[in-house]
């Protein structure tokens, strides 16, 4: 009888152990993957509009990479970019994967429409305003990983009266410059190109952000979530 009691206790112990292991497996340590917020700034000034087809490839990559719960926005850089009007499309992907897929289709459609509709570039290039707008957007999403992608030659050309010579706040944001093309003047003095990049790096790092340049668009897999 004593044996039978102990046998039942043993069975309970084993079943309890199995349950405990299952729970342990279920809640095993490790950090959960955080959601992402991506803001892509497209330079539509001057000759850079010719590069917009490449931006579509970047957007497609982003759409394929981002999942439910992530956010994405695409905005253009024009004469005054610190404005919601410059946002071409933005969305926060639904928790349901099927709805998120529909949102991605719609997003793609909007961007494709925009790219095909661009005929001439804007007169000025307000990159700082665009970054500030992007910073506000990604901070509002409260995402774990925040990215601002700048698809531009990084040559800022402000219209008269616009004030942008102040520090920008990009705390906790990874700012990635994409496809930074060389200008004609850069070819004459390549130091201008390096200087331009260094100045932007300094501004971003002073604002608490992380600066990165990715010119080779064949290596997009290193773009986000490395």
């Amino acid at each position, binding site marked *: 009888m004593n044996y039978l009691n102990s046998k039942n206790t043993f069975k309970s112990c084993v079943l309890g152990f199995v349950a405990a292991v299952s729970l342990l497996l279920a809640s095993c340590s490790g950090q959960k993957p955080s959601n992402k917020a991506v803001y892509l700034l497209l330079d539509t000034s001057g000759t850079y509009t010719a590069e917009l087809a490449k931006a579509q490839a970047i957007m497609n990559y982003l759409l394929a990479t981002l999942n*439910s719960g992530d956010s994405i926005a695409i905005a253009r850089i024009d004469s005054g970019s610190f404005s919601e009007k410059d946002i071409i499309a933005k969305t926060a992907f639904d928790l349901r994967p099927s709805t998120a897929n529909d949102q991605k289709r719609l997003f793609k459609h909007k961007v494709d429409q925009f790219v095909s509709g661009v005929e001439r570039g804007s007169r000025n290039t307000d990159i700082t305003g665009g970054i500030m707008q992007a910073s506000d957007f990604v901070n509002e999403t409260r995402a774990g990983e925040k990215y601002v992608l700048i698809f531009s030659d990084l040559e800022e050309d402000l219209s008269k009266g616009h004030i942008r010579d102040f520090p920008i706040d990009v705390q906790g944001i990874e700012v990635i410059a994409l496809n930074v093309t060389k200008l004609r003047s850069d070819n004459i003095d390549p130091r201008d190109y390096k200087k331009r990049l260094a100045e932007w790096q300094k501004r971003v790092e002073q604002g608490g952000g992380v600066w990165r340049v990715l010119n080779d668009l064949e290596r997009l897999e290193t773009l986000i979530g490395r």
Partner: protein
Amino acid sequence: MDNQLLLIWSDNAATSLVVWFVIVIISFYLGRNQAHQVLKMTGRMIFTTMRLWEFSLKKLEFRITKRNREILLANGAKAAEKAVEREFARVNNIVKRDLSKYPGLHRQIAESIEQIEVDYQKSAEAAPLPPAWGDVVQTIAALPTGGDPTVNKILSNIKKAVEESHQQTLKEYKKSSAESHRLLKNMQPQWRGIDEKLGEIDCKIKGLDKCSSNIDSQLKTYNDIMQGQDAAVSSLASSSLTQFFISGLVLAIATLGGLINFQLIAMPMAEMVGGSSYIGSLKTSDIAALVIILIEIAMGLFLFESLRITNLFPIISSMDDKMRRRMMFVTFFILAILATIESSLAYMRDLLALDKEALQQSLINAGTSSGIVEAQFRWIPSMGQMIMGFILPFALAFIAIPLESFIHSLRVVFGLLAIGIVRVFRIFVRMIGGFIHHLFKMFVHLFDLIIMVPLSIERLVKGKSQSESKPERVGLN
């Protein structure tokens, strides 16, 4: 500091070292007995401590072995009891099903025998052939007629009458014989019927005989177990190990099945609980899928428990039959619902995968036509997934049987493992104890080796003094 200590006796390091060496040798020589005592005592103490440990381990091993033996015997006794019970149930079934018809069968056989007897008696009542008809005819034929036509006619008439009578009797006899043959022919199916029925009885009796020999064998095993015979224990241990490995293998297969099941429902689960919520580092949708699978396994356990196939929860097996039957239906119903849910989730997974694939295609082939080409037999994998989604929960329910075997044999395997570990540890402790004991004995001799010079001098002095004292004694004598 070390150098200063070394050079305390002389500036020459070698000289100082020699002085130190001499001091050490002398000190060792003077403290020889004490050093021997210390070394011997230490060796002895460690050896004794190790021996004590060994005894404790031996006792522990004995206790575990005894416990394991008890478990094995109890398990074996229970299994043998169940086997005997099953055999008795089988005998009961045979008796109920087959031998309950025995009175009817007996009556049929009796009726058949009676009928055969009646027919036999009837067949025996044949008209006898007139014994002397032939002789009478011959006698009449041989009578001298004397040429008298009247006598001739009379004799011919008599002969004719006699022959007619003979023919008639013969005819009657043939008719009677034919009747007897007919009756005997009619008896044939009756005989066959009796033979078949007796064959049936023989078959049933043989079945009973087999059951009784099985019962004998099980009772012998049970008796051996109750007597605690070593052969029975060894056989039970071997059986437990076999069960452990087989059930482990089946559980591993079931785990793989569970993983496939998980893959089928994890993705569509994201549609229900969201694809971006996490508990710990795991997706909530994955945990939800895991929970569904675990519930299915739990339902399977309860179902098999209600069916009294397994005996993991005594509270379920001790329920009254009505309640148990209710529980059986409820668990089966829940299992069927979960299987249906899984089936639909599997279909949904297929749709989602298709949608995702179409989106990926449209993103890769930007600018070209979006969407993928619809395959001709696309419905086959969809149907396959649905069927798998429906069948896997029921297949997983069967995990209860190997799980019970695994848990039962696990205890014995743990016991055997513990015995093995304790035994190895005990031998190790004993070896270490003996080794240290001998090591310290060796240290004693090594100590003497270090102070061999003063020891040799001592021996020489002692030898000399003894040799000097001997002649004096001789002189005195």
